[in-house]
């Protein structure tokens, strides 16, 4: 086990390194820079800024300096938010995105999976039809449409929930619903199809032939098998949700990471782009790693280390 974790850790570092290099090169190949504005700066000022942030150094030196910074967990200063470092941006933005994302994940698991189970158990009956209809709707409606719709109904017309900010718990409701709508539908559909597939397996008929209760057949024999594909999609999904959705954060005016990221790109705020990419990539790699660990727990046929 220890050897396996070590191996994964090394491969994660290599992956991170590749991601950092590619993002760095891509970013610098895009025309423009952090200080290119519509109204040109006086050349002396621009030169001074470039010098201050070492942007006049050769590219390889900037790259080496940046990687060196990452090794010290220093993601550098933001070029646009004066006086703020990227570390500070992440520290202030991540908790906001993380809370909204975390709640969404909870909602997805607590609603999506049970809906899928109900649909599978009542296959081709009205319960199934309702779930399938809602799930199809949820998958086809983009989150910004859903968000606008929710705002119109619950904030503007009914005046029940705030339209922006998360000062009180009420502020979380609309963003979480808008953010999780798609994923609930996706997880419900996946749970349904995965369970239906499992129901056809010989060991399920065997479980029935042993005279077990429907409850045991479903939860002991069925669900553990059916969960494997769901765990697969949950890893990246969790990483994506926790690190923030730009669209949702913009609509509900949440000061999360997603907003910083997109603003960073349009501002050519190099360190912010790099910093958030590195953060997101690291998060994703860790989630994928956790998913693999859960696999080993769910399915004994998957051996993590090759010792047998």
């Amino acid at each position, binding site marked *: 086990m220890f050897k396996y974790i070590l191996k994964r850790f090394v491969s994660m570092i290599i992956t991170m390194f590749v991601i950092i290099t590619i993002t760095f090169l891509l970013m610098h190949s895009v025309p423009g820079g952090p200080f290119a504005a519509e109204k040109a700066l006086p050349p002396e000022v621009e030169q001074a800024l470039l010098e201050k942030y070492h942007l006049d150094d050769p590219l390889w030196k900037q790259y080496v300096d940046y990687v060196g910074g990452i090794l010290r967990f220093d993601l550098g200063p933001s070029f646009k938010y004066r006086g703020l470092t990227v570390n500070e941006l992440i520290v202030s933005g991540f908790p906001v995105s993380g809370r909204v994302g975390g709640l969404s994940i909870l909602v997805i698991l607590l609603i999506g999976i049970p809906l899928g189970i109900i649909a599978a158990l009542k296959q081709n009956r009205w319960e199934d039809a309702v779930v399938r209809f809602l799930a199809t709707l949820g998958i086809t409606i983009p989150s910004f449409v859903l968000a606008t719709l929710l705002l119109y109904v619950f904030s503007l017309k009914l005046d029940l929930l705030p339209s922006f900010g998360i000062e009180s718990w009420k502020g979380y409701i609309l963003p979480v619903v808008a953010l999780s709508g798609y994923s609930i539908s996706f997880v419900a559909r996946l749970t349904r199809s995965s369970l239906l597939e499992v129901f*056809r*397996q*010989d*060991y399920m*008929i*065997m*479980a*029935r*032939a*042993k*005279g*077990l*209760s429907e409850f*045991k057949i479903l939860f*002991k*024999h069925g669900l*553990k*098998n059916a969960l494997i594909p769901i765990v697969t999609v949950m890893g990246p999904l969790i990483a994506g949700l926790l690190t923030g959705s730009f669209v949702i954060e913009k609509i509900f005016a949440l000061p999360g990471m997603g907003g910083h990221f997109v603003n960073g790109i349009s501002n050519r705020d190099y360190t912010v782009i790099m910093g958030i990419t590195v953060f997101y990539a690291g998060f994703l790699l860790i989630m994928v790693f956790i998913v693999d660990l859960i696999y080993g727990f*769910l*399915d*004994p*046929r998957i051996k993590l280390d090759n010792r047998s």
Partner: protein
Amino acid sequence: MDNTLLSIRNLHTSFFTHVGEVKAVQNVSYDVRRGEILGVVGESGSGKSVSYMSCMRLLQEPGRIMGGDVQFKGESLLSKTNRQMRNIRGNRMSMIFQNPMTSLNAVLKIGDQITEPLREHKNMSRAEAKREAISLLERVQIPDAEKRLSAYPHEFSGGMRQRVLIAMAIACRPDLIIADEPTTALDVTIQSQILELMKDLQQDLGTSIVFITHDLGVIAETCSRVVVMYGSMVMEEAPVDDIFHRPAHPYTEGLLRSIPKPGMEDKRLSPIPGSPPVQLSPPPGCPFAPRCNYAMNICRRRLPEFTKIGENHRSACWLLSGHAPSNNFRRENI
């Protein structure tokens, strides 16, 4: 004393597919006696498995029992509630399935799966069930039983898994074990070991066993009586010796002729020409008539009744009727 354990009467089962009703079991009637090994033989699709899935009430959609009755120890299984049925399944009546590779749940420990019926039906505590599971595994000759309880199915070979399934089937000392092609997926050498094991267990426990198979070799080795099915109906029912030496149905004869025997290496096997029918729109007559060498006009028009040939021997064939003209089949066989 009533010797009948399971009695199937006029059973009809159909599958409602998108192309129409497929009659998988038609008017099937026969008994399973206490303590016997009965062979049910037939080609794939002859309805032999479906009839037992109907008895256990384990038919999957779109299958449905359309008529008839199944009595187990004098009580109708078809009128039992789901809960009563659960108490019979795995307890009084258990099944061994064809494919030991897929019939065990890959994500649960063997011990977990063996103790399940014990805990469900015998209300055993965890510890009692575990002790019983060890003795069951020893009984089916799995070495190192105690350690193997915490192993997963993929750590067992095919033959070992079939032994585990057998252990599971005998766990509650059922009155009847239905073994659906239990050796088909195994190597020949393992096959005979498994058959021996099942015969031994049957002797020890006095359980009745129904062997569903297409392998006449299995029948010859294990069974005392045989039911031959074709095209979702029973063609012949007889003691095993009669089936092999005095077959009274052209289909049974055809089956026997299509297995190789020692001393005929230089001769060609004579398979039955044609292929088995799909019971989507069955013709009115005998289902075997289109492939039968002896078929007469009436065979294609009307279903034959059963003719009693001996004490325990009956066959559904027009050739056996008193009105049939003298014929080769009768002269050669009966």
